[in-house]
């Protein structure tokens, strides 16, 4: 899923300072699952903002909504009739959702209520960790199902580097060395021959470096 973290209240209050009425828009997709941008978070954030604004002597009216997904046009359209009645939309969907809404409603400022993080997994309730960078050229079959691009702080293809100590990355004690994980998996899969092969230079053109990417499925259009 796409993960994220809430922006500091101070920063949001500064963003909404010019407005007297806004929509706070959540999303039932990824951000609901990682508890940063769903229905519940819309309620908590809206209450918080109302309280802060009223205490400061300038009330704000907030319409609370949560869309099925902010990244699909069919769920954005139902908002059209009333978006214009509000001065701004504060979205707590991921960066993709926020931008998509911005594209649809040209005359309404869109404000981000969260900092979008990474493509990750729920390691346990309340703890999420990165797994994928969407580099566009997956090599997991060669690396024991563990991604060197994401899990190695240097994204190296022939690791581990000299900074690997007891399975820990030199960057921080709570980061596992991605290459130690790869080697452990390759060993248990009896695929260590994969380790000894030189890998070609990665084609970063398949990644964001090639410019914003697009997928076109003729059969679906």
């Amino acid at each position: 899923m796409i993960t994220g973290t809430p922006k500091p209240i101070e920063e949001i209050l500064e963003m909404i300072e010019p407005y007297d009425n806004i929509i706070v828009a959540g999303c039932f997709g990824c951000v609901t699952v990682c508890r940063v941008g769903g229905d519940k978070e819309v309620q908590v954030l809206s209450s918080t903002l109302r309280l802060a604004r009223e205490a400061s002597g300038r009330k704000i009216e907030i319409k609370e909504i949560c869309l099925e997904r902010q990244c699909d046009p069919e769920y954005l359209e139902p908002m059209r009739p009333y978006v214009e009645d509000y001065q701004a939309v504060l979205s707590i969907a991921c960066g993709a959702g926020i931008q998509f809404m911005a594209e649809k409603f040209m005359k309404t400022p869109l404000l981000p209520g969260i900092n979008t993080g990474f493509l990750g997994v729920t390691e346990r309730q309340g703890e999420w960790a990165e797994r994928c960078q969407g580099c566009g050229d997956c090599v997991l079959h060669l690396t024991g199902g563990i991604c060197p691009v994401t899990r190695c702080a240097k994204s190296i293809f022939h690791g581990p580097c000299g900074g690997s100590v007891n399975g820990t990355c030199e960057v921080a004690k709570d980061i596992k060395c991605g290459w130690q994980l790869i080697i452990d998996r390759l060993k248990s899969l009896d695929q260590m021959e994969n380790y000894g092969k030189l890998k070609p230079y990665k084609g970063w053109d398949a990644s964001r470096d090639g410019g914003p990417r697009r997928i076109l499925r003729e059969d679906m259009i």
Partner: protein
Amino acid sequence: MLPCTGRIDESLLLKAFENGADGVMVIGCLEGDCHYVNGNIRARSRVKRVYSILEQIRIGPDRIRMYNLSAGEGAKFAAFTNEFVSQIENLGPSPINVARKQAARESAQEVQAT
């Protein structure tokens, strides 16, 4: 009606302040004694989160507090309540209520002026 403090979430607590509460006491069962295993533990962490929200928006974190009591501790309940009420009285009305009163006074003056 709440079956358990575990049902309380942050928005409910914040709503209480929006509805004009100067302070909110959350009273759950004794820790380790929850009928729903860990409802009161969850409530405690949610109260903690609201505590930090109230601190950030300068409503005052001390306006919310969690207590744990068993149903048989009537005297303790009274003591906790008195303690909390005097804590809130010391803090005075919540900034929301102050702002509301101020706004009401201003609009009354406007009415008088017209």
